[in-house]
């Protein structure tokens, strides 16, 4: 059976990651930025799984699960923060949330 080469998976992962980075850097809406982060994480997951498949080892799968757990926790905390920010500031524009520097 013809297999899909690993490099294809990696290229897809790189494309997804780049999209995530671009979204993170250029979008102003916090929720969109947040989704970009998830996209980057899952791009990395994809490369982990691809390598695990190539090397026939389970480590990559394990890491993918770790990342998912962390991402889930991060989503919970992150959404809570976003909610609070919106409630306090009335905005989701990331450029307006820079009070940490003072």
């Amino acid at each position, binding site marked *: 059976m013809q297999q899909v080469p690993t490099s294809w998976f990696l290229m897809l992962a790189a494309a997804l990651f780049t999209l995530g*980075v671009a979204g*993170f*850097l250029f979008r102003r809406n916090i929720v969109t*930025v947040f989704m970009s982060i998830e996209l980057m994480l899952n791009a990395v997951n994809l490369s982990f799984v691809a390598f695990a498949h190539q090397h026939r080892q389970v480590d990559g799968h394990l890491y993918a699960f770790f990342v998912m757990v962390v991402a889930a926790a991060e989503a919970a905390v992150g959404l809570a923060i976003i909610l609070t920010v919106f409630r306090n500031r009335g905005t989701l524009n*990331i*450029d307006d*949330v*820079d*009070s*940490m*520097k*003072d």
Partner: protein
Amino acid sequence: MQLWLIPLFPLAGFLVNGLLGRRFSRSLVNLFAIASVLLSFVWVLKTLYGLGDLPAAHVEHYFTWIRSGSLDIGCDFSVDRLTAVMLLVVTGIGSLIHIYAIGYMAHEGGYRRFFAYLNLFMFFMLTLVLAANFALLFVGWEGVGLCSYLLIGFYFDKPFATTAGNKAFIVNRIGDFGFSLAMFLIFVNFQTFDFARVFAQAPGAPVGTLTLIGLLLLVGACGKSAQLPLYVWLPDAMAGPTPVSALIHAATMVTAGVYMTARAWVIYAHAPAAMHTIAIVGIATAFFAATIGLAQNDIKKVFAYSTVSQLGYMFVGVGSGAFGAGIYHLVTHAFFKALLFLGAGSVIHALSGEQDMSKMGGLWKKIPWTFGTMACAAMAIAGVPWLSGFYSKDAILVAAYQQAPWIYWLGVATAGMTAFYVFRAMFLTFFGDYRGDRHPHESPPVMLVPLVILALLSLAGGALFPVPEFLRGFFHAAEAPEDFTLMAISVASGFIGIALAALMYLFKPGMAGAFAGRIGGLYKLVYNKYFVDEAYDAALVRPLVGGSRAVLWKAIDAAGIDGAVNGVGARARDVGALLQRIQSGNIRSYATWVALGAVLLIFVMGLAGGIVR
């Protein structure tokens, strides 16, 4: 023989009065202070009686103090004939002065502190005298210096007293520096500090080494015994209470230098150049200080310069090879100079603190006992025949003549000046009309009894205690020939001095002022002590202080060290100020930095050829 008990009694007195005496009554303080010194004196008598003739040194080893490599210093005490003489002087005169101080300090504050310090001084002085090696001697040497400092600055609320204490301490540092170097040289050459072993090896050592050791020891002695050029601290030391001047700055501590050079006589006997230097320093000091004494008006200052001058005599004795005569003069000087100071203290006490002789006069009727005893001391120091000063001074001068006649002639001139200034002080104080406004009263018996005992010792002490004979076996010195002519000349010089003083201050009181006016410039020079203090101030103190201020403080400390420390802080702040621009608070700019960093990292890794496995 339990030698350790001798210094232990005063130490116990110091500890009891110093630590526990807060609520003691004055009589209880007296009890501990006086009893400790008297017990020490009794124990000295008992010890010396038990040791008998002392043909050789009696050494007691207590414990090893320092052991490191070939260095082995024990806490050893020894008694030989020289130590025996010193022990008797220190504890005997010390006891009398302690008793006197009860009366003198009766109206003073800090009573307990005073006696605690005085006892501590006795402890260190006895340690100095009993020590059987240079290191232990140095402990006593520094200890008496400390007590001297504490007691000069006893009236710590008076600035001149505290600065006088500082001056004594700092000038003594210079001498102690020389003494320390001498000790290092001794250890390098002899591998020991023990007197017995050093002096056994000394005759075999090269003359150059011995001369250097001798000269460095002399530097130490010059500091402690107030010789040229380090004498400047002693006249200022009179800021302390008068019993302190008598005990520490006349009878005992200042003679430690003479004791130390006499102790090291073997070294000097094999280093003639060093010994001759002692004689020259001694006679120069004796003459120089005597001239200053001629024109002082403060009664204690007169006796202070007299002490410097008489210490010079002792060094002439040691430096002429007549070690016994030097120690002899040390003993008789302790009698009559302690008496002169205590008498001066009695006068000051009688006049409620007046020290200026121009405001005294006619006191002999008011305080006859003080006058009578001081007259004995004055005659003794002037060298009136068969009194104590006569014997010791002539022993020194005859020995000096053997060494170098010019030293003898300067000594004779000094003897004349000594007689003059002492009798000048006597006449100004006790004769003529009273020029002050106080109400003189005789001192209490507790002060007069020590005066009377010391007066008897000043009169008969020379004949009673033939110290040179006693020490002849110890120093192995040749017997100095009796020379009637030399003796007569120096006695005549003394009498001329007395007669001149009588003429100028007793019979024609206006003459002194007229004479001083005639030689105006010279008189001013002497009256102002040759401006030595001012010269030292200009030549040494000011450049040192100025240099320290400009270089050590401003340049090195403030600019260099502080600059380095502050500079590190300031640069860190500058870098922080630069970097804080990155900290915009804008999340997207942070993310840009992260992304750029990641790209840079990947780029660098690509250039380096991937991760090294």
